């Protein structure tokens, strides 16, 4: 292209690189430095402090358990929804909109909505009451009921963030030419076989993308758990927040942040390995 300097593309990406350097790479390095600094000296003290803290291992356990339970549930539900929407003829627009609404809802608002439902005298208990299952307000979210509390967080997370997976998968499905499924049908594949052997393999890139994004975001879960369980269900990012805000100890908070960054990166690598996308196997 004449009259276009070869530096033009660099000129165009320079601002964003500069920005990411200042607001991604640099704070990233800072986090590491802070995590390894105690009273101005390099030390692993923050990590020792963190690991010795009574909430660290529960937070670790809860966070991982949440990821392990929530992400597969969301993918399964989103796949179902995506397949359902593919078939839809009438009302597709409105259903699509409704199903994607949670995409715009913050985790905090989602936590509050489910708090209104699941609190002692909330709507869920009212339904149980009318069904004659319980006789009065019953607590599901206290430290005595860690399992129901955990599943309350799971439900709220599934409610809030399935839409993200759904959107990625629907977009992925739209990229798969209809001819493949039609060809499979001609050769006698049942709907399930078509889905299992044609659609699913071709959907791999979208699945991978959705899994990486969702896993990273699931490790970041904070406000939902905070709104529903307060201190009763410690979560890694929540602990980082508490150490930063209430305890005013940036070093330990940074150590927590470091752990979150590490597990996020590790999960991304795992997904990249587990779901191998072979470009040559794609249309």
């Amino acid at each position: 292209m004449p009259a276009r300097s070869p530096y033009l593309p660099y000129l165009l990406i320079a601002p964003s690189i500069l920005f990411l350097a200042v607001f991604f790479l640099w704070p990233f390095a800072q986090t590491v430095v802070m995590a390894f600094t105690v009273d101005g000296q390099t030390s692993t003290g923050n990590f020792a402090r963190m690991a010795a803290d009574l909430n660290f291992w529960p937070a670790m356990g809860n966070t991982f358990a949440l990821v392990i339970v929530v992400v597969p549930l969301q993918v399964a539900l989103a796949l179902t929804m995506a397949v359902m929407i593919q078939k839809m003829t009438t009302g597709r627009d409105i259903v699509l909109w409704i199903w994607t609404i949670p995409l715009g809802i913050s985790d905090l608002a989602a936590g509050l909505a489910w708090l209104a439902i699941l609190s002692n005298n909330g709507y869920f208990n009212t339904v149980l009451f009318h069904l004659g299952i319980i006789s009065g307000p019953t607590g599901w979210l206290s430290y005595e009921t860690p399992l129901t509390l955990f599943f309350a967080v799971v439900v709220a997370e599934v409610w809030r963030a399935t839409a993200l997976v759904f959107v990625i998968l629907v977009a992925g499905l739209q990229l798969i030419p209809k001819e493949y499924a039609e060809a499979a049908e001609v050769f006698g594949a049942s709907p399930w076989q078509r889905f299992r052997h044609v659609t699913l393999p071709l959907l791999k890139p979208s699945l991978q993308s959705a899994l990486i994004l969702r896993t990273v975001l699931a490790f970041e879960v904070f406000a939902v758990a905070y709104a529903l369980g307060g201190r009763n269900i410690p979560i890694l990012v929540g602990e980082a927040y508490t150490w930063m805000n209430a305890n005013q100890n940036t070093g330990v908070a940074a150590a927590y942040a470091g752990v979150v960054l590490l597990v996020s990166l590790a999960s991304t690598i795992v997904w990249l390995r587990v779901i191998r996308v072979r470009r040559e196997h794609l249309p």
Partner: protein
Amino acid sequence: MRTNLRRLLPAALLGGAAMLAGGGAIAQDTVFLSTQLRPVEEATKMRQIILRDAPGRVTYVVDEPAPMTTRMQAELQGGSRTVSVVGAAHGELLPLMDFDGLEPVGDLAARLADRGIPAPLMESAKLGKDAPRYIPWMQATYIMVADKRALAHLPAGADVNALTYAQLAQWGRNLQERTGRRLIGFPGGPTGLMNRFFQGFLYPSYTGGLVTTFRSAEAEAMWADFKALWATVNPSSTSYNFMQEPLMGEEVWVAFDHVARVIEALRTAPDRFVTFPAPAGPKGRGYMAVVAGLGIVKGAPNRAGAEALIEYMTRPATQVRVAAEFGFFPVVKAQLPADLAPGVKLAAEGVDKTQTARDALVSLLPIGLGARGGEFNKVFIDTFTRIVIRNEPIRAVLDAEAQNLRAIMTATNAPCWAPDPASTGACPVN
């Protein structure tokens, strides 16, 4: 769709720019930063009722204690000063002196001499300097509130106004046996003030101290008792931030909390509730006195406005109104009117009974911990969590947490405060 979006984009851009431009400077007024009366309803009343008649324009902003310290320090160092008056508890004002953040207010104190602020309060307002660094503002404490229906289940021979921890535990058992529900409540949620219960009530009552006696044998016995008591406490207590809501919602019948955090329940249904002091232990009836003061920030942008505001806030009429609205009581000589709202009257009675109890053992908010105040609180909450919630052995937990506590005390070099005996240097964990 296309045209809509096309129109939407520039409009949104313009909107953003306009907002940005509008968010600028405020006119010359007095910015009043407070760690007290923080919850939205209280802050709103503060702005709309109390400060409406204040001299000049006052902007009332609130902040949690630790960020308040950080902020004041940043303002002093950064030079962009906005805040003129700081209102905070005694123990929260003290860290500001680490960077000499408060102006001496000796002149003002002299002018306000006729207000009748008790001499001991004025003395502690000096924060260890020659001249007072703040003017006492209001005082409060924590009380117990009970639904009248609960009174029928009091253990035999127990006087609700002279309760012991043993009796409270028995009361809880009675309630549980007879109603099938656990009806005692504590504010153990993330922003609840449960830590103050341990620091100013439970520990002093059982051990006569706090930091020094943290891992004493008495403390061990205390935690065992409290664990037993906890068996009759509503498990949602670790989610309660304010006790007024569960009291109103009848989730609990007996509750402990800061006066300001139960007043809404008392006001809504004064006929339903009684107020009384926290229980007593072997060493007396520990209670924590909360004294809040008003200080003028070093290099305040509006010194005259600040003084006028403090003068206004310490007027007897203002103090009575604050009492009527929030349940914080006057530090000046002021007669609470007889026609006080029944709810406020209930609260006042509770405070009065607490302060005048025969076996009262006063303790102060933690002093001199600065930014470590959060971690100090964490020690008590963690100890509670480990012993009571997670069933860890008491002795081991106390020994382990004592190390954390010691580290904080050494790092801050904070001397002991009441009821611990005065120390030279950092308050020791014995």
